[in-house]
């Protein structure tokens, strides 16, 4: 990521305003373990940003540093250009929606939402008006007198959101907010939440390990690994132009084919070529949907293998194909006439659908 991308909008070329959240080289160590390793990223006004990575990649630690539950050992975290480190946790304009929501079990919905306003010493009458508005925003009018234990998971999540929104925070932080919900509810809540945040124009930072959730929710995604930001970009950039093999592997299913580049190109076994600036040993990423397969026959390409097994993926069929002396490749195909008869043990030949969809990485 270059510096210019921070200041100039890549699409319109217009200068961007100063970032709301600006993380510069944040470092956090626990004993000997470095959990955050010089992390840098920024979120623009009204942007939804996602920290994506497997557990232990430091995404939650970064979130907790922004909220003030942890203090970074080095680096800066700026909100609206001001360093947050000296600001105590209860004075930051940062609202956190916790993974398990952390609703106060001894307080009713209304008093949960009123909590922050009460701490700010707001008069009771004004608190009531604001709580009513906040609950209406998340469509929980009529639930004021309920206790958290009397609500469904989705309702609890909405109380947790209302509880921080009522304080009109500069930044909204959400720590895996959909984890506690069942799969079916998750999808609709994701849409609903994105719409709500966009409507209110809040800057939000999400943490998730779920790539689909990240692709659905975010304006930009930071893919993290062992405390480092591997790539920071829009969902399209991350998916179509992964910066390295790790990102390619983590976001979306990928095949890796090891080959040799010379003269600015790599030749695949089916004879097609992929352009590259690299030379020497390389690793080519091929998305499963970019591989076409057909029964091995007279007009077969020279790239052949045997189907190890096949698996239904909704309307599609995924095949795992064993190649000689190599790990398998995965191919995704529509269940149409050409492939319907293919079963485990059948010999097939492979062809690349679109050479432009492949990405070449150096092999280390």
């Amino acid at each position: 990521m270059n510096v210019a991308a921070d200041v100039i909008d890549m699409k319109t070329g217009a200068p961007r305003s100063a970032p709301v959240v600006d993380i510069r080289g944040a470092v956090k160590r626990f004993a000997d373990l470095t959990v955050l390793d010089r992390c840098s990223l920024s979120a623009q006004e009204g942007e939804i940003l996602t920290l994506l990575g497997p557990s232990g990649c430091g995404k939650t630690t970064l979130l907790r540093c922004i909220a003030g539950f942890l203090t970074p050992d080095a680096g800066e975290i700026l909100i609206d250009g001001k360093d947050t480190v000296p600001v105590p946790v209860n004075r930051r304009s940062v609202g956190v929606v916790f993974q398990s929501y952390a609703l106060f079990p001894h307080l009713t919905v209304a008093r949960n939402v009123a909590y922050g306003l009460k701490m700010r010493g707001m008069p009771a009458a004004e608190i009531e008006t604001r709580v009513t508005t906040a609950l209406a925003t998340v469509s929980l009018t009529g639930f004021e007198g309920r206790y958290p234990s009397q609500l469904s998971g989705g309702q609890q999540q909405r109380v947790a959101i209302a509880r921080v929104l009522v304080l009109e925070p500069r930044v909204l932080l959400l720590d895996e907010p959909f984890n506690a919900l069942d799969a079916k509810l998750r999808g609709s809540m994701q849409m609903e939440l994105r719409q709500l945040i966009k409507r209110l124009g809040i800057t939000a930072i999400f943490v998730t390990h779920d790539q689909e959730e990240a692709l659905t929710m975010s304006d930009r995604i930071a893919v993290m690994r062992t405390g480092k930001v591997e790539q920071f970009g829009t969902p399209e950039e991350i998916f179509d132009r992964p910066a390295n093999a790790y990102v390619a592997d983590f976001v979306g299913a990928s095949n890796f084919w090891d080959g040799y580049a010379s003269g600015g190109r790599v030749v695949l076994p089916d004879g097609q070529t992929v352009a590259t600036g690299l030379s020497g040993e390389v690793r080519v990423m091929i998305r499963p949907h970019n591989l076409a397969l057909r029964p091995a026959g007279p007009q077969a390409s020279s790239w052949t293998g045997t189907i190890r097994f096949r698996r239904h993926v909704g309307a599609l069929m995924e095949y795992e194909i064993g190649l000689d002396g190599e790990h398998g490749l995965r191919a995704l195909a529509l269940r149409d006439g050409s492939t319907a008869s293919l079963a485990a043990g059948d010999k097939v030949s492979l062809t690349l659908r679109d050479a432009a969809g492949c990405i070449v990485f150096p092999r280390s």
Partner: protein
Amino acid sequence: MTRSLPRRLLDEILSGSGIWPAVPAIVVLLVVAVIPFAILLSLGFSEITVARGVIVSQDFSLRYLTTALTDPLYHTTFQRSLTLALMTTFFCVLLGYPVAYLFLIGKPWVRRVILVLTIAPILTSGIVRTYAWIIILGGRGVVNSVLLDLGLISAPLRIINTQWAVVIGMVQVHLPVMILPLIAVMSRHDRRLDEASANLGASRLGTLWNVVLPLSIGGLGTGAALVFTLSYTTFVVPQLLGGGNYLNAATMIYEQVVYSLEWSKGAVTALILMSTCLIVLLIFAWLTNLGTRWTRVAQR
């Protein structure tokens, strides 16, 4: 395959699905607790004759009960017991709650120290722990020696055999019983609630008052009830630190039953002790219930 009766019985006991395994315990509890309590109750309403440790006759009489209820000595003694126990409970809450809070916010080694220092006294004899206060508060005890050496006083203070000596001893002896139920609550406390509270703008004191305290009312109630019961009915501490001139209800029972062998009086005193104790405990339970109403809302 038919199995022998003993074998089936064994299976029944091992599976533990029937009331069976508990029967011996139930019999013992009936004989050694329930029946004796019934007898104690009946003796409170009786005129009895005791000969060489055996009750030879028992006749219905309200004499002892009415005497006790109108006796000024009883009034002052029970008033003193009640004051003493309530003071002890108050100071145990005052000192015990901070320990529980330190347990909540403390690092693992702090937690461990608190556990050891709380559990060790429970395993130590009450007499030994009270005796320690004789050494500390006595005429030539630790406090007086230190104060004399520092030149703060010219003659030893009379601390032991005063009400304050009894209160100090009681608080120290019963403090662990206050702390343990609180620690149980604290170790279940969800720290994310405290983070949420801070995130919403509460100071640490604000979080303590609005989140930690309301969520630990149950432990506070249990601890207070235990401390009250124990300090209301103990005779070791008043006996040793009150110097015999500080009579509470329990020492009164002890003297009536063991020394003056007035068993009817002793039975009446024990009954009054138990019923007043129960009344206070019910008040405690009522207060605890008020504070934990949210736990009993209809679950969805």
